[in-house]
């Protein structure tokens, strides 16, 4: 089933807030990896410079839209963050809240 993969890279301090938000915006799960990054704010994301979290979640197109809006409303102004969306094919789409 065609779904969306939303990938968010963000300062570690926001991880709990963002995963809590993902849940309430319709994500049924997510995967987090430790990452380092460089962007417009330089290489500083955490206590140890450059440290960050890469969060990815497979969701329906509508949930993906909600997530992007949430991220841009709450975090674009003040935080080191990027979010991007791609198309993925997944089995058992209903498990991940596929649009019907």
């Amino acid at each position, binding site marked *: 089933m065609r779904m969306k993969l939303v990938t968010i890279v963000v*300062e570690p*301090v926001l991880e709990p*807030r963002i995963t809590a938000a993902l849940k309430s915006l319709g994500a049924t799960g997510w995967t987090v990896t430790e990452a380092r990054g460089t962007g417009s704010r330089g290489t*500083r994301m955490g*206590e*140890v*410079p450059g*440290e960050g979290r890469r969060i990815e979640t497979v969701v329906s197109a509508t949930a993906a839209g909600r997530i992007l809006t949430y991220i841009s409303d709450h975090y674009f*102004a*003040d*935080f080191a963050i990027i979010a991007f969306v791609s198309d993925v094919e997944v089995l058992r789409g209903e498990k991940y809240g596929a649009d019907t």
Partner: protein
Amino acid sequence: MADLIRANLLSPIVLAFALGVVAKLIRSEFTLPKDLYVALSIYLLFAIGLKGGVELSQTPLSTFWLPAVATLAVGVLTPVLSYIALRQLGRFSVADSAGIAAHYGSVSAVTFIAAQEFVASAGTPAEGFLPTLLTLLEAPGIHVALAIGVVQASRARAAAPASEARAAIHSEHAHWSETLRAVLTGRTMVLLVGGLIIGLLIGERGWEPVRPFFEGGFRGALTIFLLEMGLLAAERLGDLRRVGAFLLGFGTLMPLVNGAVGVALGHWAGLSPGGAAVLGTMAASASYIAAPPAVRLALPEANPTYYLTLALGVTFPFNLIVGIPAYHQMALWLAR
């Protein structure tokens, strides 16, 4: 005193810090693995907690309560003084002023340890209950400063469109308790408070078997930790220009003011010169572990470059090299 300063400059921890700075300046790829950094900080915090608890088990409560009051006074005075200096003299925004003040109101555990080592090697060791004071100072300064920041900011927003302001206040309330809990349950507090209680319960007898690990290895582990601190501090040096002359002055003069306040209150509370010097160092130091995430969440519009660069790149090395001997000297003067 010249002797002590020289001895301080030639101590393994200051030299290890310098090595870290130099390594970064020559653009070495050398870093400590992140997990090693965290492991060392867990070890150091737990060790001072435990040892502090063991010594606390031999301290009569009567000698302890005045210094505790002095510490809480430090926790209120230093963030307020820092905020006023930044807002009134430096004309910084409410968020930036409060954010930086939160760092100076709290305490840096590594600076504390360095001060303990210094006064001990100067022949004037601090009281055994100083680690307990350390745990008292971790949180209040952060909350005083954040409270100032949030209250002032919502005043400013009173003029803004009502609905926005309401939303902002609503979300502030939600985040406030989150921030408070995060500081009180953070790594530093769990290990220090937990270590203190365990040390208190096990006493000298239970301490003996774990002592080779927690005491024998302490100074060596601290040396490696300061190597990493040097790397982290030097990482910030590139931002010194962005921070501006006022903040550079703030990062060196404010510690002297806060340190003097701490030494004076410690003296008033009956601490020995060593103890007063360590309390002064606590007052003078700027937190760079507990404060940054709390400020990041509670005052996101405060510029992290300011507070991280100041705490790590300016005030930490300043205290390590100049501040600690100075607060010690102040304490000796008062004690005369």
